[in-house]
């Protein structure tokens, strides 16, 4: 059962320590280090898989996934702006966060499936990379309109050169060029230690989640509701897409989880610079304070159960 997965227990430990106001904290240099390792490792894994099959075969799937990345924020925005009465900039920024993906959540769903020995398409990290950026672009366009055109060049830097995207795509390219044998020498650090590093990452995430609760209270009940309900809707969309694309049971669960997850690495940095008038604590409180814990504690098993219903024959 999911909550027994030790890596998730580290998240729970972090949450408890945070709630009890322990002085536990990962030094920020270590948190950076751990995050960098996760991003590189996920990129490398995906790249190695890419090197196994002609890109063209994946092209259609990749296009469909990018389309989803463009669609999700377009769905989220009106809900936030009209239903939630959030200002345009704030609604656009939050929409971008939810249209993009959370690398940490991906790592947890992958660990979840592996520990249940449920196979999934190994090239999933490619989708993680593909989903990072489109939602950011949509969010910016919503907030700025095409008026922003003249500064797209400048914005592209914020979007594509943030360390999150660079490490993920860099890892992907290295894995792709080096191939399965090429990465063997660095396997010990990036693959064997992966789960342990993820555990440390989740420990800190637990502490960060608690630190967001204050902002969350201020941000109001609507946002909390949105942070739980929208992911489930998005999961439904992601899961259906996975089904349409004929992914395995595992692959469908991953795609559903990716859709349900909200970015807190690449997007916040990019939106902060591109749409500065948006209040960053709103999107972070929702993504880190509600959606991330919801997904790794309840969402993933839930999406898995749902997928089982859609694909009774288990594939």
């Amino acid at each position, binding site marked *: 059962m999911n909550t027994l997965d030790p890596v998730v227990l580290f998240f729970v430990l972090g949450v408890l320590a945070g709630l009890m106001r322990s002085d536990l904290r990962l030094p920020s240099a270590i*948190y950076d280090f751990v*995050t960098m390792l996760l991003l590189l490792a996920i990129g490398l894994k995906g790249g190695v898989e890419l090197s196994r099959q002609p890109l063209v075969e994946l092209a259609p799937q990749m296009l469909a996934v990018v389309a989803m990345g463009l669609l999700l924020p377009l769905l989220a925005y009106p809900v936030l702006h009209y239903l939630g009465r959030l200002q345009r900039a704030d609604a656009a920024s939050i929409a971008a966060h939810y249209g993009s993906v959370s690398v940490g959540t991906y790592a947890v769903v992958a660990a979840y499936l592996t520990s249940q020995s449920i196979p999934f398409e190994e090239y999933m990290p490619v989708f993680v990379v593909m989903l990072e950026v489109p939602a950011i672009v949509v969010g910016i366009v919503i907030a700025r309109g095409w008026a922003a055109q003249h500064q797209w060049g400048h914005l592209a830097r914020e979007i594509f050169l943030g360390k999150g995207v660079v490490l993920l795509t860099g890892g992907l390219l290295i894995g792709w060029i080096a191939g399965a044998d090429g990465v063997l020498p660095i396997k010990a650090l990036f693959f064997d230690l992966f789960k342990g590093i993820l555990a440390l990452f989740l420990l800190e995430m637990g502490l*960060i989640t608690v630190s967001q609760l*204050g902002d969350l209270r201020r941000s109001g009940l609507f946002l909390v509701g949105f942070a739980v309900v929208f992911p489930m809707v998005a999961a439904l969309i992601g899961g259906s897409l996975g089904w349409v694309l004929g992914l395995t049971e595992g692959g469908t669960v991953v795609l559903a989880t990716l859709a349900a997850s909200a970015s807190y690495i690449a997007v916040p*940095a990019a939106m902060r610079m591109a749409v500065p008038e948006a209040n960053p604590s709103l999107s972070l409180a929702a993504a880190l304070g509600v959606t991330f814990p919801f997904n790794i504690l309840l969402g993933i098993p839930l999406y898995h159960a749902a997928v089982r219903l859609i694909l009774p024959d288990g594939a």
Partner: protein
Amino acid sequence: MHTEIRKLLTVICEAQLEPRVIADLERLGAHGYTITDARGKGARGSRNAGWDRSANIRIEVVCEAATATAIAADLRKLYYENFAMILFMSDVEVLRAEKF
């Protein structure tokens, strides 16, 4: 020992602004600057998370009064509305005044 008076301008703002603010400083004629990493709390709430998403930096610039005022005015215009930032100034005695 001969000393002269210059302005010490201290800017505290969110870390992500570093490249932009530095560009502004150089554009406005500061001959140098010193940066230390910081955390803190202000009107925009607590700023101390990792993955330097919301950490602060503390920038010090020693320069002539006119330059300091120009920088302060400029930074306020550019960032005060949307970013976590404060700044303050004071007089300091320096050696090698020509440097600043």
